[in-house]
């Protein structure tokens, strides 16, 4: 099923993470959320946990999960969503490679048949 991605020694990616916050600009600052605050949050919650780590073994939130692009993006969403003080987390887009990415988007969970 997983082919090359099943190499027991693992393999690496240069992930790119896009985080989108939605909301009304604050009337005083003109900002939806202070970028410095967002940057510090991402550093603390994502980079400190995952950068240069072996996702299978070193990230507690991924224990028991296969670290696919989908699952890693869901974990990042769950880490960030409760900690956004202004605006709301609208989308987490995680690129595993330039031609592959997973999105978590605010709204209802997918309910349809998987096919």
């Amino acid at each position: 099923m997983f082919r090359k991605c099943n190499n027991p020694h693992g393999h690496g990616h240069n992930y790119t993470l896009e985080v989108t916050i939605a909301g009304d600009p604050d009337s005083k600052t003109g900002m939806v959320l202070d970028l410095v605050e967002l940057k510090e949050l991402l550093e603390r919650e994502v980079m400190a946990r995952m950068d240069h780590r072996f996702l299978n073994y070193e990230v507690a939130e991924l224990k028991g999960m296969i670290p696919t692009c989908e699952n890693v993006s869901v974990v990042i969403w769950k880490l960030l969503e409760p900690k956004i003080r202004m605006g709301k987390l609208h989308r987490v887009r995680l690129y595993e490679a330039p031609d592959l990415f997973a999105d978590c988007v605010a709204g209802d969970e997918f309910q349809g048949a998987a096919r």
Partner: protein
Amino acid sequence: MKVTLTRRYSFSASHRLHSDAMSEAENDALYGKCNNPYGHGHNYVVEVTLVGAVDPATGMIANLVDLDSYVQKHVLADFDHRYINEEIAAFKTVVPTTENLCIEIYNRLKGFPGAKLDRVRIEETSRNSFEYAGGA
């Protein structure tokens, strides 16, 4: 929160924007350079987005190998290095704008058995992109 998975593909093809519903002069005025009778080419990028539950056993919405082979068979094999106006039956009577290309490719991929197709987004150039998510 819903989860989607997107894969980017590319193909090269040529087209000519010309509508039989308009005169030569009207076509020239509307489509300009894109109305060149010899056609012109693009390196199209096609983003295919699937939506669904992440399977707890695999961690995946769908198997990418299956998606790659489905897109190869139903889209890339037909479109790559072709003149869309003349070589793709659907565009014999439909102007091959990228809007219409999105609809055609969406319709070709909506039967993918591995997961539900969420949308098709096409970059005609690095400055133009179009998107179709089905429906009316």
